[in-house]
């Protein structure tokens, strides 16, 4: 078991804070590469179907240092999206009909312009998703009113809770996180989030807390609902089961615990052709804190910027060109096609 972290890999100047080192590990694969696997399926070209989701990383600063974080976020990370870059995002949205904006981090709420950005998106009638780590709501007084702020703008809240037990949650996300998460969930329930008769959506994310694949999403959701209701009187809407991708801190954990080869084998053995078409890069564009464009959040963290002639910065946003782009693949993509598939919205099959 890895001991709890206090700072990011970057803060430790760890070799895996360098994306080239991560990519070297991912590319050193004895088995068939992901792109060859797609070629075997007759998919030598892999392009988006549309751009429905605009996923914006507001920065890498976070109040937590989760062991599995593919962003390598933490309190020591200073990368933060500026209001100017947010304005470029709004300008891009104004010239497209993209309706869903997915705000992520780090803890997106720690960006000083977070509320301004949400208000601007709300004014434009966008469906806003915030990936909230829950504990931020209790991190200081200035965040305590977040549930009401979310409610005011009908923000959909998506929050990680790797388990309904303190032991499993704290092992992944830090000591005391489970208890604070439960408190935050109650605060969200209290303003109407996650309740059966409410349109305020509260969805939970399950990530395996180790080198294993997620269980069946429907079964997990039923069990989480039962355990959280019986144990804490907490309600939520849906549970998304997401596979951990071998990137950044989860990659570090896999290598340090000598689970990397076996985990990659698990992903490869579980490759499911039926999961390929629904992967999130096919209908999402991911915007980095500095405005660069990526196929997905994972490619963003590996710094695999768009290429093949597609614009790679938000200032050059062009829906037509981006829809025709070639998606950049590497062996971490096996994580999104294992089993029932995995995306920011859970399974893809």
């Amino acid at each position, binding site marked *: 078991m890895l001991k709890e972290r206090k700072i990011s890999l970057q803060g430790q100047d760890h070799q895996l804070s360098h994306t080239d080192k991560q990519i070297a590990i991912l590319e050193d694969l004895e088995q068939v590469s992901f792109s060859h696997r797609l070629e075997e399926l007759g998919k030598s070209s892999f392009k988006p179907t549309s751009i429905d989701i605009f996923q914006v990383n507001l920065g890498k600063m976070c109040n937590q240092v989760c062991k599995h974080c593919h962003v390598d976020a933490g309190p020591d990370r200073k990368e933060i999206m500026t209001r100017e870059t947010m304005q470029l995002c709004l300008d891009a949205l104004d010239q497209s009909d993209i309706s869903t904006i997915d705000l992520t981090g780090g803890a997106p709420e720690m960006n000083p312009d977070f509320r301004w950005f949400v208000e601007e998106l709300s004014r434009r009638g966008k469906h806003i998703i915030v990936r909230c780590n829950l504990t931020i709501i209790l991190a200081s007084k200035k965040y305590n009113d977040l549930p009401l702020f979310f409610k005011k703008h009908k923000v959909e809240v998506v929050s990680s809770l790797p*388990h309904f*037990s303190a*032991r*499993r949650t704290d092992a992944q996300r830090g000591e005391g996180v489970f208890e604070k998460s439960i408190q935050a969930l109650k605060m969200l329930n209290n303003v109407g989030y996650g309740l059966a008769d409410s349109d305020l959506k509260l969805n939970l994310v399950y990530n*395996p807390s*180790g080198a*294993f*694949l*997620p*269980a*069946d999403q429907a*079964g*997990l959701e039923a*069990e989480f609902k039962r355990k959280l209701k019986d144990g804490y009187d907490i309600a939520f809407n849906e549970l998304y089961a997401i596979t951990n991708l071998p990137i950044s801190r989860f990659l570090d954990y896999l290598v340090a615990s000598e689970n990397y080869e076996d985990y990659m084998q698990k992903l490869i053995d579980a490759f499911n052709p039926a999961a390929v078409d629904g992967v999130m890069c096919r209908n999402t564009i991911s915007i980095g804190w500095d405005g660069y464009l990526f196929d997905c959040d994972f490619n963003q963290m590996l710094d695999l910027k768009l290429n093949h002639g597609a614009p790679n910065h938000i200032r050059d946003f062009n829906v037509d060109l981006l829809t025709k782009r070639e998606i950049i693949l590497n062996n971490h993509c096996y994580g999104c096609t294992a089993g029932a598939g995995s995306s920011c919205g859970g399974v893809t099959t």
Partner: protein
Amino acid sequence: MDKTYYDPKDLKKFGNITELQPELGKKFFDYYGDVFKEGALTQREKSLIALAVSHAVQCPYCIDAYTSDSLEKGADETQMMEAIHVAAAIKSGALLVHGVQMMNKIDDLTM
């Protein structure tokens, strides 16, 4: 080099038992696969039973395999440990219930 009877890498070679007797090997693996499909019992319940039996038969390969499998089927550590206690209770119960036979024999042999 240490010589041992068990090597974790050998678990991956389990399928190779079909090389020396393909027909029976295939029948076994087909049966095995069918047993673990969702049925009257859920896959998670079957995995926990397998984990408990793995301990009862003290098979290290099975313990590794069904620890992983139980986690992947969504079981938690408490459920997994309870499953082992069920196996332990049956093992010790099975031993102790033989005490009745001993007591019967004592009755036969004593005044």
